[in-house]
């Protein structure tokens, strides 16, 4: 079973839920798809090993063969190529690696080289039984999705897979939650939380992924999120209270189920509920 954790807004507690849920299960695989800011391992502190680099295929243009006809730049929809009198120049940060330029070139002057934009890492040892994979986007690189795709190639279907998604509702989130059996949306009980939750709900509805809510920092803010959920029959799977002890453990990078073991049972109960909801028990 694949469970994706998403949120709409950043900072609601996605990583907290992902890590604590994974720790409460036996034999979980945890995929940190928030490749701009992978944070799961800050809480697990596993030694990591690099699995591979992730690259996209960018054009390499042969000066000898190129006639500066401009067909490549015309085919590129990302404005990554410009034709000058002296030849063609590539703006690598704009290139999506689609290959349109090499198809369009009538002279066969374009070959492709791999440009590394990030990497995949995995935990070298499995403390707490969790196998962690994470993607890391290199600094200054704009595109997260190719790394997420590569990361999802490491999914082990024999395990329960927990997918920590990036914030928001755009492209990288879709790449992350595609193929999930269930999506947990983590929110906080404030007007900001509710606003972004509604966007995230639209997304998972559109993708036809069953979903439920975990309210983090319950006790602060107002009743807006709970009212919205009950009016729209959205299951609230769990409420994590606003608790100084949890906040302190979080700031230290310690998953709270390790110090407050009764929470392990709560997460396990939630997981069993999900199994029932998705007919996977």
């Amino acid at each position: 079973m694949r469970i994706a954790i998403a949120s709409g807004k950043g900072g609601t507690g996605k990583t907290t839920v992902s890590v604590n849920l994974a720790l409460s299960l036996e034999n979980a695989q945890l995929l940190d798809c928030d490749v701009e800011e992978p944070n799961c391992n800050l809480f697990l502190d596993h030694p990591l090993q690099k699995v591979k680099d992730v690259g996209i295929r960018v054009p390499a243009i042969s000066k000898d063969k190129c006639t500066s006809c401009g067909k490549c730049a015309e085919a590129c929809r990302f404005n990554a190529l410009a034709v000058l009198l002296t030849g063609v120049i590539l703006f690598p940060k704009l290139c999506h690696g689609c290959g349109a330029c090499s198809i369009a070139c009538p002279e066969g002057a374009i070959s492709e080289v791999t440009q590394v934009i990030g990497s995949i890492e995995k935990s070298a040892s499995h403390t707490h039984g969790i196998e962690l994979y994470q993607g890391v986007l290199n600094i200054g690189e704009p595109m997260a999705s190719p790394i997420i795709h590569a990361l999802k190639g490491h999914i082990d279907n024999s395990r329960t897979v927990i997918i920590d998604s990036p914030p928001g509702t755009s492209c990288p989130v879709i790449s992350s939650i595609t193929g999930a059996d269930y999506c947990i949306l983590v929110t906080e009980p404030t007007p900001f939380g509710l606003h972004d939750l509604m966007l995230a709900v639209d997304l998972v509805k559109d993708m036809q992924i069953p979903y439920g809510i975990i309210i983090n920092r319950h006790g602060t803010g107002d009743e807006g999120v709970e009212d919205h959920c009950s009016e729209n029959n959205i299951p609230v799977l769990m409420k994590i209270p606003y608790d100084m002890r949890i906040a302190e453990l979080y700031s230290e990078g310690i998953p709270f189920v390790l110090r407050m073991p009764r929470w392990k049972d709560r997460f396990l109960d939630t997981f069993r509920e999900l199994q029932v909801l998705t007919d996977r028990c």
Partner: protein
Amino acid sequence: MVKQITVISGKGGTGKTTLTAAFASLANNALIADCDVDAANLHLILDPVMTSKLDFYGMKMAAIDQNKCSACGLCRSGCRFGAITERFVIDTHACEGCGVCALVCPKGAIVMNEHKAGEVYRSMTRFGPFVHARLGIGEETGGKLVSMVRKNAAEMATMHGNDLIIIDGPPGIGCSVIASISGADLVFIVTEPSVSAIHDLERVIEVAAHFRIKTVVCINRCDINKEKTAYIEDYCRKNGVKVIGKLPLSETPTKAMLEGRTVIEHKDDIFTGTVQDIWYRVHSELFHNSFRPLFQ
């Protein structure tokens, strides 16, 4: 020349929007822009009255004419984003709009269609003009939309004679963050003393340095972990980044948000007093210090 300050955070939830809104209420002659297009929240506090709306077109999207399609499969093998299903239908969530499929189709069965991906709004608020946007659900990361917001902000600021643009940026370090900070005069990073926020802070400082933009850091909720706060101060000092202020953990931001007001409007307490001090320092960084590139 209109100055620009972008508020970013690396990690979400550190208090970016709270501070942007506070700055908006403290600035005398600023335009406000919400570039966190993926989860725009500032309008919830600023209560804008829209004056105009512009459609945002993202990348064109491929569409297959089933009558012309011979199911030869060249488009599927040419597409590097897995966007063409076995039944030769475009998966719009996966399509990047590169046009390779249209290029390779021997039957001319694939066309690239204009595709509305969001909206940009020009508005007025009680603190001055405001540009914001909404990215359609599941659309491509909003770098292009961020640029459109900033372009409209610059135009509107010139029109209204504003001397400053305050930009609420997105979390992370990717496309939309880069689009939000490029060309800004100052990057204002909000962080908090937790392992994950520190990790993201270090990455986002590197991004700002990569683009050679002057950067200051504000530590929010500095009292939840004093050792980590000291670590951040030390890290910033070593990297030539000024810590411009420290804010205590407080209920004020949440309470102000519930009322749809900025913290400054909500109440006068230690928290808001510190925010005011920070704003004066920001103002002096922007208008009185000569530019000095970092990390040379």
